[in-house]
């Protein structure tokens, strides 16, 4: 079918890259935003603009709040759909709380057993609340954590929850990313000789391809590691062997492991009081200090709450390491006696913790965070230039032959490149612009996001006709203008509604808000520059993609 391996790789790179490039663009863009998800949360929820807090006292503050947590109404409804009538009061299974060095608010979680499901003995529902750990006050339910609860899930599930389809599309995209990287390296004839090459002064197609190669090659380790570790993190979803083929083995392993550590796998069914968890925390901290790794609590987990077999597990926050949490100390809940202190992880476990930790990044290292944003955005540039190159290469030919292909690919490229930026800005503007009194504010905010994106797509389609004549679609320029306008509007609205402008946030050294405002202004500046240059190009109407040396381009025309 192909005369050489390289031609075959070119075909794979072009067509797989095209089909999943749109998804990858979204995954990379929202992934880059998720690096600063908690900081975006602060910007979006002004009540929480204070310094990160450590895990507060369980006995004094958390326990009474945990006791009030009810199962989420939506989850109860879903459970009723599964099993019919539910018990009047679902038995409590466990409580947990997770925090990092970037969290001023604390999310508390509870799980409740659904005991009457014959198909799943471990069926359960969740409940959660978010509190201000300084006072114990609960955060209103309708305050959307735009960074960690909206942009971040967008990154790995696209918010397509039906049948978990979103996870699978993202997985496929990650797989294609790996394929595109390998095939891209194979196609690239001068990987080392043109490692540093970018020629913006040459013709448009040449410089687009240079930028595509440059952003793909220099950040290759990042692209590769993140596509791979992303797949590893969700391996349990993609290959649910412990739920299917190997279910019995997995359950047995779970029991044996629990027994080996002396932690009860099942509740005893006998009520028992809970000893002081604060004392256990103090003991765990002294154990960490004794190992020369003094630290704070990252994860607190109470299993079989109120039962004689109850346990309390305290995990150290991994701010200073790549792994998320670790060095767990497990206690008997009724007495506060240490049952098991986890030894350093085995080599396999450390590799796993390192790979997932490097992707999930809960460590404290601001430079590395920004370098991840750089990696993610270079991925965006790589994908966007790939799409532009595809269109640029075909639009003259398609124009001459009256084929619509290049036109619609270009419209989809607009929808997936400037579209998500507009959607993000729309949710931010809605977040600051909507009155606080309206109920279910989160629903309106999410609505603004999706409507803006759909409008961006419709606009891209309507304004794509010039591509049919071999020209640049004005949609690119117009959406750049919209981006600049909305980004500035978001900064101004933040100022009006919270009184916090750049001068004040910088002078009080509050970087989550100052930094995000600066990023918005930078985005506006970049969008304006891009719009100006697009206008120049639209005017020159140069047919500039015919004069490229054949060997510089993809050999096949796909």
């Amino acid at each position: 079918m192909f005369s050489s391996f390289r031609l075959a790789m070119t075909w794979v790179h072009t067509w797989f890259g095209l089909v999943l490039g749109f998804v990858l663009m979204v995954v990379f863009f929202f992934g880059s935003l998720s690096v600063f998800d908690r900081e975006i949360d602060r910007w979006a929820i002004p009540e929480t603009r204070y310094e990160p807090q450590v895990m507060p006292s369980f006995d004094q503050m958390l326990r009474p709040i945990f006791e009030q947590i009810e199962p989420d109404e939506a989850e109860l409804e879903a459970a009723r759909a599964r099993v019919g009538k539910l018990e009047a009061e679902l038995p409590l299974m466990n409580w947990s709380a997770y925090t990092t060095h970037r969290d001023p608010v604390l999310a508390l979680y509870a799980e409740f057993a659904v005991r009457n499901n014959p198909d799943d003995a471990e069926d359960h529902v969740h409940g959660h609340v978010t509190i201000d750990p300084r006072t114990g006050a609960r955060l209103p339910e309708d305050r959307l954590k735009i960074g960690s609860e909206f942009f971040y899930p967008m990154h790995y599930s696209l918010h397509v929850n039906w049948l978990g389809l979103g996870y699978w599309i993202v997985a496929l995209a990650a797989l294609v990313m790996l394929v595109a990287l390998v095939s891209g390296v194979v196609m690239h004839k001068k990987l080392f000789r043109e490692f540093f090459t970018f020629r913006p002064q040459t013709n448009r197609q040449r410089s687009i391809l240079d930028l595509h190669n440059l952003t793909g090659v220099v950040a290759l380790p990042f692209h590769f590691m993140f596509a791979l570790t992303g797949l590893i993190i969700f391996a349990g979803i993609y290959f649910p062997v412990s739920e299917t083929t190997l279910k019995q083995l997995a359950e047995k392993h779970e029991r044996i492991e629990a027994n080996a550590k002396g932690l009860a796998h099942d509740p005893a069914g006998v009520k028992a009081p809970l000893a002081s968890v604060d004392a256990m925390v103090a003991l765990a901290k002294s154990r960490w200090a004794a190992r020369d790794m003094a630290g704070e609590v990252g994860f607190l987990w109470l299993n079989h709450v109120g039962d004689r077999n109850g346990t309390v597990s305290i995990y150290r926050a991994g701010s200073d390491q790549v792994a998320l949490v670790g060095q767990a100390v497990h206690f008997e809940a009724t007495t506060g006696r240490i049952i098991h202190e986890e030894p350093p992880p085995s080599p396999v476990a450390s590799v796993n913790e390192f790979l997932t930790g490097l992707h999930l990044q809960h460590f404290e290292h601001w430079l590395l965070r920004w370098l991840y944003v750089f990696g993610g955005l270079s991925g965006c540039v790589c994908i966007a230039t790939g799409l532009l190159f595809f269109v640029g290469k075909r639009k003259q030919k398609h124009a001459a032959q009256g084929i619509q292909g290049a036109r619609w690919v270009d419209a989809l490229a607009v929808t997936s490149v400037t579209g998500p930026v507009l959607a993000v800005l729309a949710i931010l503007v809605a977040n600051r612009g909507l009155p606080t009194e309206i109920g279910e504010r989160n629903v309106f905010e999410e609505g603004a996001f999706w409507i803006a994106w759909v409008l961006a797509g419709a606009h891209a389609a309507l304004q794509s006709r010039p591509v049919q004549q071999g020209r640049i679609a004005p949609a690119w320029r117009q959406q750049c203008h919209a981006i600049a306008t909305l980004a500035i509007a978001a900064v101004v609205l933040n100022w009006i509604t919270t009184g916090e402008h750049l001068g004040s946030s910088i002078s009080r050294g509050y970087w989550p808000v100052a930094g995000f405002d600066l990023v918005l202004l930078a985005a506006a500046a970049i969008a304006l520059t891009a719009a100006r240059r697009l206008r120049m190009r639209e005017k020159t109407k140069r047919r500039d993609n015919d004069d490229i040396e054949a060997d510089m381009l993809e050999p096949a025309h796909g």
Partner: protein
Amino acid sequence: MVDAGLLMLAFLCSFTGMSWLALALKPHWVQVRDAVPHSESLVRRLRWFGATGLVLSLAVCLVADHASMAWLVWIMTLSAAALLVAMALAYAPRSLSWLAAIASGLRGSA
């Protein structure tokens, strides 16, 4: 603050290292130094300088952070430095002439 200084130093080492590796390639040398000859021995020296810069950068990263973190920081630093060098060569190639001058033994520095 010490850490921030070390990380800046690590980035500087990566940047100079990457610049020298780029200058070991003829087209980039010409961009920066025009007609100054690009001899065989100069290329070898530029490669050595470049490699040393990258290794030094790793060493500084290892001093600044725990080893597992340091490798991540180093790899990402290399990527960012390479992109910066490419942009410098594209828009302001002369800005790298001091590095070319250092490598060519400060002879005929621009």
